[in-house]
């Protein structure tokens, strides 16, 4: 038995089928038709204590649904989940004492309350004893550099500050596990980097088991030791980041705007032409075949180029690749 066990878990939602038109609307008053949507489809994985796992996939893959089942909000349609030997939804409150949850797209903070008083509120909610409370407030205010905005109401904080506050509050009761659902969504590059550093430190210093969902490839590369990838509710990959990168990563796209039509001229075969649009051509290449710097130099040295753009593979590309490669 591992610390977190997910065995053959399925989650289906019943969605009311809505059809257009007045007559159909009237009909649905008396008789509703439902579609069954399978958000999570026979998923298996295990997580050990102290791991830092990235749970990734495109939008609508079933990531949040899984987090909600792990945290006891939703009941699986089939299968079995245990967290430290406890079934989350059956022992919701017991499970809740051991976990911290942050949903990146919604706030659990009181809008008009400064963080100072929000901490007080969470002390009362979680019944944290005074010594632990003092120690943790000090620790996290320091760690998340919150001193400068402790007295301002939450509604006046920047997105990055709010996210730090959310994470701090979720950690106040010393949870053993922290679930982060899209913790970097909507943040600028600097704020994203901060959050990533904090997440790594929480995991290494506090030994908290951490599972975060994201569809940001940089999050994955910079913080996760292990990757679990799902799409359309199905598990596509479960393994170390290094293997994941070797298997699916390394692909990039170069968009080249040629100064004038370069028809007839051969381009290095390691760069695969995928589309032409006037003088703009798009190539796909792989790092293991040709490095980005080499590819750039190649175009600059050999052609008259007015504009160049390189884009690293995003999660959608990676998922597409995973289907191709199996």
């Amino acid at each position: 038995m591992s610390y977190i066990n997910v065995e053959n878990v399925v989650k289906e939602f019943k969605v009311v089928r809505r059809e257009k038109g007045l007559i159909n609307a009237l009909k649905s008053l008396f008789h509703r038709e439902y579609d069954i949507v399978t958000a999570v489809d026979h998923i298996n994985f295990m997580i050990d204590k102290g791991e830092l796992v990235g749970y990734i996939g495109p939008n609508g893959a079933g990531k949040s649904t899984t987090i909600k089942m792990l945290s006891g909000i939703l009941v699986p349609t089939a299968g079995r989940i245990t967290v430290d030997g406890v079934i989350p939804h059956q022992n919701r409150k017991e499970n809740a004492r051991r976990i911290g949850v942050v949903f990146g797209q919604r706030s659990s903070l009181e809008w008009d309350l400064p963080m100072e008083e929000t901490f007080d509120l969470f002390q009362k909610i979680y019944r944290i004893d005074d010594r632990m409370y003092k120690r943790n407030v000090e620790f996290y205010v320091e760690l998340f550099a919150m001193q400068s905005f402790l007295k301002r109401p939450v509604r006046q904080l920047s997105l990055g500050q709010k996210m730090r506050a959310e994470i701090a509050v979720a950690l106040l009761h010393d949870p053993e596990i922290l679930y982060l659902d899209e913790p970097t969504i909507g943040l600028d590059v600097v704020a994203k980097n901060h959050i990533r550093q904090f997440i790594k430190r929480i995991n290494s210093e506090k030994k908290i088991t951490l599972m975060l969902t994201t569809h940001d490839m940089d999050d994955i590369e910079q913080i996760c030791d292990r990757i679990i990838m799902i799409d359309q509710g199905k598990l596509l990959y479960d393994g170390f980041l290094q293997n994941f990168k070797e298997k699916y990563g390394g692909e990039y796209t170069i968009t080249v705007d040629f100064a004038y039509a370069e028809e007839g001229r051969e381009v290095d075969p390691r760069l695969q032409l995928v589309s032409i649009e006037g003088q703009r051509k798009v190539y796909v290449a792989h790092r293991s075949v040709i490095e980005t710097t080499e590819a750039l130099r190649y175009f600059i040295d050999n052609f008259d180029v007015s504009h160049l753009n390189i884009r690293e593979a995003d999660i959608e590309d990676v998922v597409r690749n995973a289907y191709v490669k199996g």
Partner: protein
Amino acid sequence: MEGGPEKTDGLRRVIHMHYFRLYLQFIKIRLTSIVSYRGSFFAGVIAQFLSYGAGFFATWLLVKAFHELNGWTPYEVLLLYGMNLFSYALAAFFFFNLAVDIENLVISGRLDGILVKPVNPFLYLICNGFNVAYFSHISLAVFTMIICFRGLGISLTPIMLVMLALSILGAALIHAAALVMTSVPAIWMLRARFSDILYWGMREFINYPLSIYNRAVQVILTFILPYGFISFYPAQLFLGKEDYLFHPSLPYATLPVGLGLFFVAYRFWRYGIDRYQGTGT
């Protein structure tokens, strides 16, 4: 999911202290926000006061015009209005946010945020839902009841005062049960305007003596939607009315009816949350 047989009395007491502390904390928070939005708070109080004051006045004019309704004098009818308003305000003070805001909580995902906390969501929402706006209703209702008893020359004995308090408590529980029950479909994202209309519409009936309606309405308001126990039956007791309907013991039944209904409403709400966890949205 809640509690369990292993829970001792001592532990229960600790749990109640927990919610009590939480409640005080939230009261502090709400009062702080009122200070930061003073203008809108007072505007709200005045608006509420005016709209309920208009209801008060309309009832008064109507009864004045008829001189009496089936043996009930204007002050007596106004007392029904006062009891109804008082008990409603008391219920809404604690339950309005839980009942009316639940749809928002589901849509915004704040309900999920509550379910990942080690708290009973019902008690948590009551703590969180402290609604100061109802001070205006309560003061208007108390004012109404005082002028009624004065106008009628009734001075309540201490025992009668206790009975009045218990009746109002029971009546508040009936209002609360109605608020809570009608909110359950919203947890499942089924907008149930029908149940709202049933509740808000029927509430108007009990501003007048139940005895003026025909038998069908009396049966409904006593046995099916027992709003009669909010004002009409207990008022009979304090006014010494003897136009008993069904059984002369009914004027004493408000508190038990309220407790029973509230218990059913609470179980139904828990069922609503369980089903939400089962099906999601």
